[in-house]
Structure formats: C-alpha cells, structure tokens
C-alpha cells in the first residue's frame, strides 16, 4: 500500500468571515474525501464542523465543493483527484454559512412546505388500494431517487449568483413538483404557482443541476422542461386558452 502525503485546504470560519487553512496528512489506499476530512478532524482540528451521516451516498448530508465542484464528499474517491496540489474543500456557496463546511440549508425545508402536498384520486378498489403499472411509475421513481443533498440548489446560478431565493424554488423542488405532477394518482394542480411564486421561468436550461446530481437524475430534461411545457400549454397557448373558454362545461 502506498501512503501519500496530501494537503487539504479547508475553509474555516463562520458567517462573520473566515479563511482557508492548510492541513497536511497521510492517506492510504481507497479513501474518499470525507475520510480525509474526518482524519483531520480527529487528529488536527477536533472542532472542524462537517455534516455527514451514512457515508454511502444515500443521505445527502456531506455536500461541499471539492476543488470548486459541488460533490458529496463521501462519494469522491481520493484517486480521482490530483494529489500533487492542495485540494480545496469549501462549504456550499449558495447557502449562508453556519461554520466551516456546514451551511444553513433551512431555506430548502421552508420551500418544500409551500408546495401543495400529494392528493390522490379515490382508491381504485374496494379494499382501498390502487392499481398502477410499472411503466407508469418509472419516471416518478427516477425523481424520487433524490437524496436532498441540495448540490443542484448550490450550483444553480439563479440561487448561487443572483440570490433569488425568494422568487425561485430551485432544481430540487422542480424535481419534487414534477414527481407530484406526474404521479399517476395525484389530482392536484400546481401550474399557477410554478409560473408565478415558484419562478420556473428563471431557469434557462443550462443543465448545471443535472451535471452535479449524484443520483444521476436528468433534472433538466425529464423534470424541468416538461414542467415548463405544461406551464406554457396552460398559460400561453392561445388555442388552448380559447378552447378552455368555449368548451362545454360540466
């Protein structure tokens, strides 16, 4: 086993300010970035703040920016990085800093409560159950893979650069809305708020969110674009508008 020296350049600080601090440590084969952060925490910086939980890419807690790229630290193998240079580890930049690598992601939790909840049609069978075919739920299952790591929220220029957190719910919650809207049992309509309060128009399809998704959800193509199309059909299609006006009611 080849042991190597590496330098981690980790952001240390809180909402009032901070700086990068270099930590040099020795690594063994097969480590991921989070292991090295933990080693530094145990040996050199007991008070280094970092969120983590499952260490297997399933909980989405250890999101950070590794050499400037939004990533899950637990799923970033050291042998994928250039170890000859210091590796920078920064907190997600789209959210307020709590301390070191931990950010205040509570905005995401507030946003979710504003999206209308799942509202199923009446059960299909007398025993209170429904029938759905696998091919009808495949798309929704893709969206439901989301582990809420919020890396897509971090990378999106609408939140990251323009800070439009009040007018825009971000890729994560377009995926969430899409999962509800395309759920075979759901009867709710969420298009009016998608257009207005949830700001889907701000997305200009640069696909950065799709690139950083650790669950490989095709966020832009499968969730956002179909939602944009539904919004267009509902509010901007003159023929659809006319039909809605003149169609027989009841």
């Amino acid at each position, binding site marked *: 086993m080849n042991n190597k020296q590496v330098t981690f350049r980790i952001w240390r600080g809180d909402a009032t300010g901070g700086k990068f601090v270099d930590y040099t440590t020795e690594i063994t084969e097969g480590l991921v970035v989070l292991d090295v952060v933990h080693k530094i925490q145990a040996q050199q910086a*007991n008070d280094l703040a970092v969120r*983590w939980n499952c260490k297997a890419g399933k*909980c989405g807690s250890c999101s950070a920016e590794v050499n400037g790229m939004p990533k899950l630290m637990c*799923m970033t193998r050291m042998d994928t990085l250039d170890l000859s240079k210091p590796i920078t580890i920064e907190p997600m930049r789209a959210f307020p800093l709590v*301390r070191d690598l931990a950010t205040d992601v509570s905005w995401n939790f507030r946003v979710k409560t504003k999206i209308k909840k799942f509202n199923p049609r009446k059960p299909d069978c007398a025993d209170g159950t429904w029938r759905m075919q696998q091919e009808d739920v495949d798309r929704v299952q893709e969206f439901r893979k989301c582990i809420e790591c919020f890396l897509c929220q971090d990378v999106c220029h609408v939140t990251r650069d323009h800070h439009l957190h009040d007018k825009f719910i971000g890729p994560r919650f377009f995926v969430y809305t899409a999962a509800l809207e395309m759920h075979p049992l759901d009867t709710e309509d969420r298009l009016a708020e998608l257009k207005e309060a949830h700001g889907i128009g701000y997305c200009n399809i640069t696909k950065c969110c799709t690139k950083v998704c650790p669950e490989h959800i095709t966020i832009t193509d499968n969730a956002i674009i179909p939602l944009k199309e539904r919004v267009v059909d509902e509010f901007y299609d003159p023929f659809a508008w006319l039909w809605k006006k003149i169609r027989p009611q009841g």
Partner: protein
Amino acid sequence: MATNFETHEFDVLVIGAGGAGLRAAIEASATGVKVGLICKSLLGKAHTVMAEGGMAAAMGNVDDRDNWKVHFADTMRGGQYVNNWRMAELHAKEAPARVHELEAWGAVFDRTKEGKISQRNFGGHRYPRLAHVGDRTGLEMIRTLQDHGIHQGITVFMEYTVVSLLKDAGRVVGVFGYDRERGRFRVFKAKATVLATGGLGRAYSVTSNSWEGTGDGVSLAFHAGAELLDMEFIQFHPTGMIWPPSVRGILVTESVRGEGGVLRNKDGKRFMYDDIPDNYKSQTSTDPEEGWRYTQNDKNAKRPPELLTRDHVARCINREVKAGRGSPHGGVFLDISWIKEKIPNSAEHIKKKLPSMYHQFMQLANLDITKEPMEIGPTTHYAMGGIRVDGETQATNIPGLYAAGECAAGLHGANRLGGNSLSDLIVFGKRAGEYAAKYAKETSVVSVSDAEIEAAYKEATAPFERAAGGSTEGPYQVQYDLQNMMQKNVGIVRLQNEMEEAIDGIQKLKARADKVAVQGHCEYNPGWHTAIDLKHLLTVSEAITLCALERKESRGGHFREDFPDKSPEAAKYNNVVSKATDGSMKLRREAIPPMREDLKQVIEEMK
C-alpha cells in the same frame, strides 16, 4: 440560571426522526395534540434512508398463500421464540394497512404485472413479502413520511441533541437538550415523550450504522429509570463491504441474495450448503437449480441456503474466514454476476434491480458487480434488544415515556428478519404516537425542576471545564478503544472470559470518559458531541455485555463459543436490565408470559 433557558412546551414530544419517530409524530398530531419532533441530523437524513431491501407485510400480492399467520410464525421462528409474541402478532396483522397508508401518502412502490405493490423474497420469510422500491426502500419511506408530516403542523427541531430526560414525581415530563449548530441549550416540556432514536451500532468498530447510532434513547431511558430488555441480541449482518478499508461495514443489501446472488469461499465453493439448521431444513433447497428458481419467484421451489436467517449466515461466513477459506481482505465472495448464465442482458437486469448497490461498488470500490463478485463480511447492524415496552401501547415502565422502532425491544426476539424493521417502524411508530397522544390528553400540565436542569447542564458542559482545568485526553481515542474492545470481546463470537475482560474494560473507559476534555466552544463542535455520545455508548455497551454474560447459551444474534447450543431453559426467559438505587446496572431474568393458545396453534400449523 436554569430559568434562563428557552423553553418549549408540547403535548407529545418525539425524539428521533427516522421512520418510527416520523410515524409517531404524524399519528400524534393527527389526533389534534401539539407535537414537537427533535432530531440529531437534518430532517430526512436518519438511518432509515439506509434501509434497502424492503418492508415486510403479508399482503399476498405475489403469492396468495401469504397471510398474517405465516408472517407471525416466520417472525417468531426467526427470533427463536423469545420475542414478545403480542408484538409479533400485531406487527403481522397491521403491517399491510401501514404499507397501503404509505401509498396513500405518495410512496411509489415497484409494481406487479397486475399493477399491485410488488413483493420480494428475503431471508426467513416463507413467501415473497417485502414491498420495495428497487434497493432504496428506506429512502422512499422516510421521504414519504417527511413530505406528509411537514403539512401536519409538527414543530421540527433539526440538529438538536437531547442530553437527559426530565422527571417529576416519577413521570417523564420532557427533555433537556441543545442545538448542534449554535450550542444553545433548550428545555422541552412535554406531557408524553416518545423515544425513537434508532440503533447503537457505533458501540462497535465495524458497523453499518452512521454516527447517529450511539444508543442515545436506550441510555437516556435507562438513566431515567426505564427497563431494558435482551440487550445481548445484536444482529451482525452477514454482508457488509470490507474493502477498501474506509468503507468497511457499509451494508450490502440482502436483496443481492434475494435476486439470486450466491456466497462462495476462496475455493469457489457455495459453503452455505454445508450447514443448514434443523428447524429450516424443510424449507431450504439443497439443489442450486431449485434455489435459483426460488429467487425467480417459482412458487414450488424452496429457498437457497444463502437466504437463511442473518445470524446463521454471518456465523457461516465467520467460520469460512477463520478456517482460512476467506477472500483476500478477510471476508468471502458474494456473486450476482454469475446470473449471466441464466438471464440475457444480465448487466441491465442487475442495474435495474440493485441500482444503489451497483453505484456503491462502482464509486467506492471501483468494482462492477455485474461482472465481478463482491468481497463481503459481517457488520454490526441492528439491536434486537432495547427499551422494554408494552406490546400494545409502546409505553415503558416510566409514566409518560414511550419507545418505538429499533430503540425499543421485543418484536424481533433473538434475531430480526430482514424487512421486519421498516414494517416495525410504521406499525409501532403509529401505536406509540397514538398512545402517547392519548396519555397526553388524559394528563395535566407538567412542571420541570430547575435543579435537575442545572445538573444536566453542568454535566453536558463539563468537558470544557476540564479542558480549562488542564485535562488533555479528547473523546475520540476513548471512543475508538471502546469500539475495538466491543468488536473483539463482545462481537459475533463470545466467550465468558473475554466478556469479563470487557466489563473491566468498560469500567476503566468510564473513568477515562469522566475526564475527557474538549477544546473550543459549544458551537457546532464535533469533539464535544462525541464526548456526550460517550456516556451513551458506555451505557449500552455495559448492558450488552452484562446480558451476554448472563445468557449461557447460543440463540439468534447471541453466539457463545463456550455454550454453542440452545438451552431449552433459556428459551423461557428474557433478560431485564435496570438501574439500581446506587446507580449501578442490575440484571434479572423474567419469565416470558405464556403464549395465547390460538397463536401456539398458528405456530404448530406453520411448522
């Protein structure tokens, strides 16, 4: 001083936001009471997300011979008959309704051809019984409960740690804790408190549990005077990752075997055929071809021995490794890639059935499971023992205190069947929420004691005082030493003298823990959190070891090399741990109440 702490007041307070805690909070709030929910992580990150295989519920969607009686008998057989039979009965009867309820709340399970919820095979379950979503069923459960719960008016306190339960006149009246981000202490007054804190795997060095699994609820309950049950029964899951070292312990789902994966030693031999226990012989195939057909849902085929109960499979793996027939890194091989002999496009099939396993090995071990076998070995996974509860209400022996999910004991006896945990969470989480709310409605407002709060505050912040006083040892080394000792001395194979050493060792580690010092301040300080966890880890380790010494037989997750057989006498009792008046831990045996006649008959019928 104590009056300065910000105080919150609830009817029902739930500690822990995994499946059981969320389900309890939803149930309680649905009855109209005011509910608070405290969790150590962010909402939706609890260890439930790690559950992969599915939730067991005898819906009979894939095999209509299944019903609650078969599920009940399977659970009791798997638990080797020291289970709380009433819990096993309620669990088997109520699980299907709880699963359907998840669907009504938006869960999207995999489907059968008829459009029903699909069910898969799992170890110890006679028929395909696990409702699932690929191999990410736990995520589906927690997200469904979370997304339903956020519209229920529950007040959630994320990233809070509870340091002690508060009592008044023998009743639990709330908790004292702090927020992990800022380190600000808070008082939570509550008429009823539900513990749903999950597992304690972090007492061991090789575990599938995240940092949260430090046995907080079990320890908090014990120190508040609640009884613990059967702490010796720890489940070592047979298949954890073992290479590279940083991922050692991370779970490899049993569904790999459910989908046809086989275990082999370094000589390529399927060693599970060498040791099939008598009570499973009638249900287990001795023909590999038949075993394969079973995994492909042939109703007339018997299960392959890889799908025997987890305790047994883990010991067989241990035996192969000890006999020198293990893999290069000290485990054995788990191979799903061989099914290319049976299925065209097997790589696509595996990726579809086991997507997160495929990613986990690709990304963490650089190994393609559709082409190569995995290296796996046993990992500390689940505590069957825990807080003693009433089977129907989930009430502990302390008024106002309830427990549900992994931190509670009884349902699983000496060994839990895969898939019975997720269903446990929703069945008994619901019951705990329901009865805690009922209790809260029937009782008056509570008062908390300033002196008690003051004492808890002093204890929690003592590591900083000690640092200022010149103490130097930090918490991490004490934690590592405990984990290594528990792994070595009270692990998968146990011996009297090794466990006696552990009892000694725990006392020495307690003395070190009492002197642990932490630098810095309360704000998001992992060193301090670890110092607080230490007390819980030491408490649960002591309880595990005491119970394991007392049970001089081998049963389920508890295997003693010096007493390798089951003792008929030991089948008649549970171990009960409680706190003596001098603060020490005491142990007594308690007879298992005789099973109802109709249930006895069910077990006879299913033999």
